[in-house]
């Protein structure tokens, strides 16, 4: 085992790449749950984003259109969840799981219909990397952030914007009020349901962007179930980050680092003992359970998280 394998530029660059889709899903989770809706359909939103992003990139050869289509697909799926959770007051977990399975089945089926057994086309329009010329020559830093993908940077910007929106603006305050005490919020004239609809739609957009990042920035293709539970990991990052955008980003980086380590330490050994890299990969999940159980820091969800709201007089 060497320092290069632990904190080398390659590991840190991989950490950023791996953290990005998780952070985008976590951001979506933060917005939805701050408004009081639990959206475990984020996984499905990522998956439809990944798939329809590829389809649009294939048909239009435009990255911008591809991302737009991907995010629209995520918003549609999230919209179904919003109707079920907000309008119909159904069990948000059941609805979310149903949509996850629906997304998995639908994308696998359409993938087979469109591309058969040959896989998605190789010449897909890809989201470009950002080359930072002055940095690229700097030894360590250049290797870490000198040529990261556009969406990696976009994610950092979104984290800051949403942090400011939630905690420094009036609409952000209203959104949080709806998640903490919807009745009080309604009393002062805030549309509880409307706010929640917008929040859930936004969560679908963000998660789908994370999915499109996987297919259009990293893999340059779509494979069935390619999101591999990153939507759920995003929810874990949201909890570990205590329902704040910046916290969620930090948690995503921790998770990304764990995964990056498990790649770089493949086959490494301390003395004669092989490093059990697979056990390292369990770290994010163990940390999350400990965090929600209150063993590591305090972590409290919004007071009305997951509780359907009903206006009085029904």
């Amino acid at each position: 085992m060497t320092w290069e394998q632990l904190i080398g530029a390659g590991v840190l660059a991989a950490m950023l790449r791996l953290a990005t889709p998780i952070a985008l899903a976590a951001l979506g989770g933060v917005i939805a749950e701050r408004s009081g809706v639990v959206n475990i359909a984020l996984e499905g939103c990522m998956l439809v984003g990944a798939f329809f992003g590829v389809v649009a990139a294939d048909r239009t050869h435009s990255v911008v259109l591809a991302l737009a289509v991907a995010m629209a697909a995520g918003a549609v799926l999230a919209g179904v969840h919003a109707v079920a959770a907000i309008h119909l007051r159904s069990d948000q977990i059941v609805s979310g799981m149903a949509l996850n399975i629906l997304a998995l089945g639908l994308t696998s089926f359409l993938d087979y219909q469109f591309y058969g057994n040959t896989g998605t086309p190789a010449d897909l329009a890809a989201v470009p990397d950002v080359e930072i010329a002055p940095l690229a020559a700097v030894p360590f830093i250049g290797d870490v952030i000198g040529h990261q993908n556009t969406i990696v940077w976009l994610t950092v910007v979104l984290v800051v914007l949403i942090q400011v929106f939630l905690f420094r603006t009036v609409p952000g305050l209203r959104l949080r009020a709806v998640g903490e005490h919807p009745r009080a919020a309604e009393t002062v004239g805030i549309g509880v349901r409307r706010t929640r609809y917008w929040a859930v739609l936004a969560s679908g957009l963000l998660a789908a962007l994370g999915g499109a990042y996987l297919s259009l920035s990293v893999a340059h293709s779509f494979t069935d179930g390619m999101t591999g539970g990153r939507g759920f990991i995003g929810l874990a990052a949201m909890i570990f980050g205590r329902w704040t955008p910046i916290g969620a980003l930090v948690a995503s980086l921790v998770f990304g680092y764990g995964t990056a380590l498990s790649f770089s330490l493949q086959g490494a050994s301390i003395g004669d003992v092989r490093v059990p890299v697979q056990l390292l990969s369990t770290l994010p999940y163990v940390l999350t359970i400990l965090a929600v159980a209150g063993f590591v820091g305090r972590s409290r969800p919004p007071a009305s998280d997951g509780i359907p709201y009903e206006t009085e007089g029904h």
Partner: protein
Amino acid sequence: MAVAFRTGLFNIGAESQLLVGAVAAGAVGARFGFLPGPILFPIVLVAGIGAGAAWAAIAGYLKAARGVNEVITTIMQNYIVVFVIHWLLQNGPMTAPNALGTPASAPIGDGAVLPIIIPNELVPLTRLHAGIFLAILAVVVFWFVLWRTPLGYELRAVGLGARAAAQAGIDPRVHTVIAMAIAGGFAGLAGMIQVTGVFHRVFDGFSAGYGFDAIAVALLGKNSPIGVVLAALLFGAFARGGSIMQANAGVSAQLVSVIEAIVLFVIAAELIVRILARRRGPKPLEAIA
């Protein structure tokens, strides 16, 4: 699964409880493989059920003692188990040389292998093994415990209304742990049956998403034992029929997952309709007035 639903818990962790049960059964079955069947099989059975139950009870405990949503815990547990199994089989204590092409454990002792009751030669493409009897037995036990024992009554009471049950002297927290443990025990049994009846060892990528299907099965079966059996048969037919259709008729097996997904979505929609219907009905107090 269904046991946990009855107490109002949502157990997403059946997948991991199944895997833990399978690993325990595989480990014990291989380690004590020299024992004769009548001694070995009960040990493997208990190991599978016990491991699944203990693993699920963690989520139940965290829910009861720390108020942690069991959905979060069980999803996290699913990932933990997958990686731990990678480790166990790839470079951990259960690694064994084999000719499968994937990392796998040593085979279990012959004494623990479930006999095949309808061999392939008789009816092609089936490997119906004695696990079916264990499954039927489990359904009967499930029915008996839930509807014919004081424990079952208390579990259902907690599911219908935790606060009312607490007023009646039933501690919802204790029953949360018990319900999760029972659910985990059933999932562990399923994993144990997979090991002793089908694969005779544990290998990487062992689970084919059985736990995920179980959520759909329990919802479709409306948590009653007979319903669960019928729903399980339906999904079994989906899985089996899907691969045969693909081989013989060129129909995409993914079509089956789409149908499965639609089935689950219809179930969810049906739940929604029921919620709506209840809202429209007269409230109890108004009905009296």
